[in-house]
């Protein structure tokens, strides 16, 4: 089977940027920045970008392209190729397939809310909600957490989930060039145009309510950007910045590695990695940081910011936009831009598992996509119907937090220490359109792994024990959380067995391919 390739360099840059640009850019970043010192937060944020984010981007692009040269698109095969002597390393690579699936299980459902809200915005369905309380009731009714005057059951949300699931499945079924690349090439420009329109609209709001002159866009920006220098001495702020950089760039998941495996040996990774990272930063810092908080602040003051950025996105923003001329259209643009951000991320999350089935079990793209879609559909039911029981938070912790940092640490140590920095540096520069500053040899070998290990240790210290003991989980939800945990464990074991089987088959095939091996056996 001929290996798939990207159609153009810009195509893969947009696909990787699309994977990185997600809901976190528009919802998580502004809240994290505002909570951690405003403008002062940007100092550790930029430091983390250059010491952690960009080096990890280069590491993932390089090892992905390297593994692709040996016919592997996923971490088990790539890790094994980089450390041939260690037969267990491929099982660590399972995290690079498991993590994206765990995220995708709940991400698809959240993404479908955005499609639903895009539709509601256009049709004016939530226009009757005039305060936060009614908007919150609307959201809870939609998600099936309450039966109220807006929704009597979950059927509407389930319909939009089916539509979103179908869009994702069809896109990945069409493959790298005709599916993923095409969607990202169309989706990202639309997302950027919508975001710029909203940005301009928010910046021209001024002081919407003259009775409250303190509630203005400028003061909203001040809430985001006024530096609180005292926060710089707080380790939590530095870890928050490192965490934000880590999550926003989609590093440590295993998707960039898979995307880069479809490059040819001569394709550049140095400039492309930088381009994708910087595109994500434009979307996050300039667009994401300038829409939600200033808009919410201008209309509702500082009180509106306290509810968390998820509430800001789903409750405050629709209320704000309703107050404006063409509010329904602006509301549609807001939710649809988030939906596009979600789609370009979710298709990237599906790719490692599909690539694994294609590469290691010689399945066609269509067959691999259908099998994957079937399994995913069943798994998503847990996130949909267990939403009110803490299932989503549990999936987010293991898939979206723990696995990311663990996988990032493993791949960096493997790249810089096991594969060796000399070979790694040469590999990074094969076909490179820029020369990476030599200081990055030191950074990738020492600083990035140290920062990752510190981040992993910090999270284990902060979250491991309360999570393991379900300290913050209400007693009624504990059986659901336990069941989710058990399901994830079983799923990880199943993936590990699949890796074992595929390597056994590969070894058997290699023996069979040796001339004269059959007669010898006979």
């Amino acid at each position, binding site marked *: 089977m001929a290996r798939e390739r990207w159609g*153009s*360099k*810009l195509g893969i*840059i947009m696909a990787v940027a699309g994977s990185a640009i997600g809901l976190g850019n528009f919802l998580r970043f502004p809240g994290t920045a505002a909570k951690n010192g*405003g*403008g*002062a937060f*940007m100092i550790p944020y*930029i430091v983390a970008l250059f010491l952690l984010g960009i080096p990890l981007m280069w590491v993932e692009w390089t090892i992905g392209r390297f593994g692709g040269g040996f016919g592997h698109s996923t971490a088990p095969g790539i890790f094994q190729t980089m450390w041939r002597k260690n037969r267990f390393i491929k099982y660590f690579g399972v995290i690079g397939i498991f993590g994206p699936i765990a995220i995708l299980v709940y991400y698809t459902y959240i993404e479908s809310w955005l499609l639903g809200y895009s539709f509601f915005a256009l049709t004016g369905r939530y226009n009757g909600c005039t305060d936060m309380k009614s908007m919150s009731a609307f959201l809870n009714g939609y998600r099936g957490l309450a039966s109220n005057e807006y929704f009597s059951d979950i059927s509407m949300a389930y319909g939009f989930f089916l539509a979103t699931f179908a869009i994702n499945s069809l896109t990945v079924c069409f493959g790298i060039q005709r599916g993923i690349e095409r969607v990202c090439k169309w989706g990202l420009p639309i997302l950027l145009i919508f975001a710029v329109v909203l940005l301009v609209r928010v910046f021209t709001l001024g002081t919407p309510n003259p009775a409250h002159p303190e509630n203005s866009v*400028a*003061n909203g*920006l*001040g809430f*985001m*950007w*006024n*530096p609180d220098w005292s926060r710089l001495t707080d380790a939590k702020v530095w870890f928050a910045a490192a965490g934000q950089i880590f999550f926003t760039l989609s590093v440590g998941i295993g998707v960039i590695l898979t995307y880069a495996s479809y490059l040819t040996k001569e394709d*550049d990774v140095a*400039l*492309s990695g*930088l*381009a994708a990272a*910087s*595109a994500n*930063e*434009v979307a996050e*810092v*300039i667009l994401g940081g300038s829409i939600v908080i200033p808009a919410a602040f201008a209309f509702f003051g500082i009180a509106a910011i306290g509810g968390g950025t998820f509430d800001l996105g789903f409750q405050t923003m629709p209320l704000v936009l309703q107050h404006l001329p063409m509010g329904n259209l602006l509301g549609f643009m807001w939710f649809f831009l988030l939906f596009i951000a979600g789609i370009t991320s979710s298709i990237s999350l599906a790719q490692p598992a599909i690539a694994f089935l294609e590469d290691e079990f010689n399945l066609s793209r269509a067959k691999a996509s259908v099998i994957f879609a079937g399994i995913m559909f069943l798994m998503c039911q847990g996130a949909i119907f267990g939403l009110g029981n803490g299932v989503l938070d549990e999936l987010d912790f293991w898939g979206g937090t723990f696995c990311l940092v663990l996988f990032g640490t493993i791949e960096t140590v493997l790249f810089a220490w096991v594969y060796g920095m000399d070979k790694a540096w040469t590999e990074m520069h094969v076909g490179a*359109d*820029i020369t990476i500053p030599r200081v990055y040899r030191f950074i990738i070998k020492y600083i990035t792994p140290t920062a990752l290990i510190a981040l992993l240790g910090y999270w284990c210290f902060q979250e491991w024990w309360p999570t393991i003991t379900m300290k913050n989980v209400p007693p009624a939800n504990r059986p659901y959380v336990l069941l989710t945990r058990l399901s994830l464990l079983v799923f990880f074991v199943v993936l590990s067995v699949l890796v074992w089987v595929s390597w056994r088959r590969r070894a058997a095939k290699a023996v069979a391919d040796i001339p004269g091996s059959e007669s010898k056996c006979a």
Partner: protein
Amino acid sequence: MRIDGWIFMLATWSAILGLFGFAMFRTLRRKKDG
């Protein structure tokens, strides 16, 4: 917003736009050359 807030915002925006501009300029120039 305070003056130091404006400075921080504009400095950060400039740094990120500069990085993005450099990366995209080099990428698209190379594409044209190729």
